[in-house]
């Protein structure tokens, strides 16, 4: 059956919500397995100590991106029916900067704080209360923010539109860039460490020393 199912009216409301729950279930489970229920692992990238965040994010995006193109080519998914992702470049850049600051200060993002709270982290629960408060603040200030919120409107522009390359060409370039990024990360990971009491990559197991690839020397 060719997708997306919901857009073509092939999913009842009950199925839609139930499958949303199932998608979230898988999402949460895999986030936990990635180590993303741990604030120290998540923020490790900003101290060049743990690179799980860029590794996991880039590989997830590239797998889904290649998958979308492949399903589209095989006529299993009508890419024209996918939800539009409009670009408002200024609020997205400003929001991204602020979000990065909130990330390293708070330790989580909205999805990972849900995982962390469900695995017993009180700080994640407090972070979630902060999220709701921040959203409330935005809503209260919205009238004053509205013009900025709609600024830099570039429409539903993709990297392919922007570069003038075919989508497969963009994928190829992004794979090359990801390869370069992973190579660079590998160099940083293998560099000799000077500071004493260094964590090494946090593996999530207490027997990291006897296990494989734990504390680095």
């Amino acid at each position, binding site marked *: 059956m060719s997708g997306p199912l919901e857009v073509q009216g092939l999913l009842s409301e009950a199925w839609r919500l139930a499958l949303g729950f199932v998608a979230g279930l898988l999402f949460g489970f895999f986030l936990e397995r990635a180590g993303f229920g741990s604030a120290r692992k998540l923020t490790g990238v900003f101290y060049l100590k743990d690179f799980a965040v860029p*590794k996991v994010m880039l590989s997830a995006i590239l797998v889904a991106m290649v998958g979308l193109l492949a399903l589209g080519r095989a006529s299993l998914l009508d890419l024209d029916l996918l939800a539009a992702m409009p670009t408002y470049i200024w609020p997205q850049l400003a929001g991204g900067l602020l979000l990065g600051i909130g990330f390293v200060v708070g330790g989580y993002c909205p999805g990972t704080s849900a995982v962390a709270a469900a695995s017993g982290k009180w700080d994640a629960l407090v972070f979630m209360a902060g999220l709701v408060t921040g959203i409330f603040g935005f809503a209260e200030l919205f009238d004053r923010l509205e013009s900025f919120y709609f600024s830099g409107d570039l429409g539903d522009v993709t990297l392919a539109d922007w570069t003038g390359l075919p989508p497969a060409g963009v994928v190829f370039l992004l794979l090359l860039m990801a390869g370069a990024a992973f190579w660079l990360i590998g160099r940083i990971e293998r560099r000799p460490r000077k500071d004493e009491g260094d964590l090494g990559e946090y593996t999530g197991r207490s027997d990291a020393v006897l296990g494989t690839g734990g504390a680095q020397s």
Partner: protein
Amino acid sequence: MDLSSYTLEVAHEWDQGTLDNGGEMGMELKPNRRSSRAYWAPFVAGGALGLTLLLTFYLTGHGLGASGAYTGATAALLEAVAPGSAQNNSYLSSYITPGRSPLYSWIVFEVLGVMVGGFLGAVTAGRLKRQIERGPSIGRGSRLTLAFAGGLVMGFATRLARGCTSGQALSGGAAMALGSWAFMLAVFAGGFLAAPFVRREWQ
């Protein structure tokens, strides 16, 4: 002696670095009952997340999200405290459907799934543990204050950027949206800029 069923426990969970100095500080061998499973290799977890995202696109035509559920919760909370207040708000009114709770939405069900999935993941890996996660040189009160402050900034930021690491970075990134990739670069820039100021919180 077969060590495979034993765990080398370090006095401080985060202090594995002491092992580099000869490994004498506060360690003991304990039976392996309490040890937690290792995380998956990043590319394995990333691949699994990518396939989950692809499945979501196939089913619904859109990707995964998270911050939208918190926005629904904010609207529901406001309506409960002061009926009509979210309805009359120029931003939150789009989250209100008459005769229906803002919580009755796809993304809220999805994030409930994330919590259950995260819980199951933590339980099956032996990582379910009540704790306040923080670095060795910060107190609980300071950590909780910073957790709230970070959440506050991020909550605001997700609305400005029209999504978070899930909806913008992962989903928009996979759909090749230009704004999502710009957003992602800005997130890392913001994180690296602020990191030196809160180093004590984590390291």
